[in-house]
């Protein structure tokens, strides 16, 4: 459904961030996009959702298509109407508004089905039911993340993009968020998951992309990535026989990644 082809993005007419990036999300899939900070993951997201303008970025080459239609020239609200909803990094909920009001803003582009969507969100996140009238800023980090996802779901998207949903969350909450992503996917929404936590992401993704310095350096079904020696070493922290190596044993000089050669 979503296809990004040969995308090139320049900031401020000077800084080239994406250098011919291509990726694809198929119907019903969870796709993970992994990569170091600064690799261009967030820029990719902005290019897809039309937010580049706010950051003085321009698409200089390539296309973004949703179900075969070009969306890279559309403005953000049109893209949301086309069925792509996103959860920004750092959650960005409206801290001064109540939980309910936050959710209502999410339904802005899709008022017709808002009742069903609201019920769906409440079923997915029972914890929010009890806090509907509370001011969002007072929710805990995990609850805020759930609210942010819930708000995106209010638009009833066909594709949900999540930017680092596990950031700064306790281990138990990460597990919860992961389960919810799987639930959402099973209800028929495709998911593009941008994550640092490769273990979590690859454990639920159907397909994965690994990104470095503005390009995809490796991609494949999750199983293939999980089995790759480099991915294991650089993204999963495994070595040898699938043992996690201790951080105490990290070496100063590491082996060069094979995909760079």
């Amino acid at each position, binding site marked *: 459904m979503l296809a990004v082809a040969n995308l090139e993005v320049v900031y401020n007419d000077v800084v080239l961030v994406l250098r011919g990036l291509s990726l694809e999300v198929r119907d019903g899939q969870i796709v993970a996009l992994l990569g170091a900070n600064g690799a261009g993951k967030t820029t990719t997201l902005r290019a897809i959702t039309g937010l580049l303008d706010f950051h003085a970025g321009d698409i200089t080459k390539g296309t973004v298509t949703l179900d075969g239609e070009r969306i890279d020239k559309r403005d953000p609200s049109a893209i949301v109407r086309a069925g792509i909803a996103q959860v920004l990094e750092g959650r960005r909920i409206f801290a001064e508004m109540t939980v309910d009001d936050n959710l209502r803003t999410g339904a802005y582009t899709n008022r017709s089905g808002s009742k069903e969507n609201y019920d769906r969100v409440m079923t997915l996140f029972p914890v929010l039911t009890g806090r509907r009238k509370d001011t969002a800023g007072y929710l*805990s980090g995990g609850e805020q993340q759930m609210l942010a996802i819930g708000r995106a779901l209010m638009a009833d998207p066909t594709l949900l993009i999540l930017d680092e949903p596990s950031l*700064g969350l306790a281990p138990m*909450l990460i*597990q919860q968020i992961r389960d919810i992503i799987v639930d959402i996917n099973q209800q028929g929404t495709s998911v593009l998951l941008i994550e640092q936590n490769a273990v979590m992401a690859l454990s639920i993704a159907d397909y994965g992309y690994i990104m470095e310095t503005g390009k995809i350096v490796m991609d494949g079904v999750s199983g293939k990535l999980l089995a790759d020696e480099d991915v294991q070493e650089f*993204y999963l*922290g495994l070595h040898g026989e699938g043992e996690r190596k201790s*951080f*105490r044993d*990290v070496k100063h000089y590491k082996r060069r990644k094979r995909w760079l050669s």
Partner: protein
Amino acid sequence: MTIPRSTLQAEFERTVEEYEHLLEFDDVSLSFAGVTALDEVSFSVDDNELFAMIGPNGAGKTSAFNCLNGVYKPQEGDIRWKGESILGTRPDQIAELGIARTFQNIELFPHMTVLENITLGRHIRTDTPWWNGALWLGAARAEEMANRAFAEDLIDLLEIEQWRAYPVALLPYGIQKRVELGRALAMEPELLLLDEPVAGMNLEETEDMARFILDIREELGISMILVDHDMGLVMDIADRVMVLDFGRVIATGVPTEVQRHPDVIRAYLGAELESE
């Protein structure tokens, strides 16, 4: 006053004084408008110890840091630094005692360059008056050069040479985290508070950060309090771990003990990590 250029190790040498613990939290309670953030929290940190604080979001870890920094003043209890109470001391004075910190959501000075940010860390270790700098007199000049040398050593240590002259707002997240560490180290602290130093980092970056933390401890002998959700990192490198939940201490001990503590598993770690 001039600071001779020398290795970082020499800079960090200090006299040994008589005290039981480097830092002590003694029954500290803090609440905001009736909401309890810390409830009778007690712990201590010793010289050259790497102490970790973990717990669910909102358990009070950052509040404990803020009390320690003097940003918040606890309603009850006492905080002692080298045996002496530091309650009611201003944040900048506490910094001068030798307590440095990094922040959960990076608090670098966004419009200043990497060099300027790190050099700012030298603020408490320098004292030429402002007019000396304004007129660019010898003392100020010597101080600037010493600061620069010191900052460059840290830049070397943290491997951020190529970013030196960039305003930090333009840098990738992982690099910003390193700059923040550098800025704290420039203060020549005796105790370093690390608030989620690897949040939002991938494994590779986490490994780098782990290495820096271990190096700093090994080479500079700085005590540290680490807060993070990355259990792999915390359990691997901490000497002792304290677990907070709703502002209360539910367990303190060496990592292996804490990891198996049923309350900790229930409140924080969840089932999965237990089985691993």
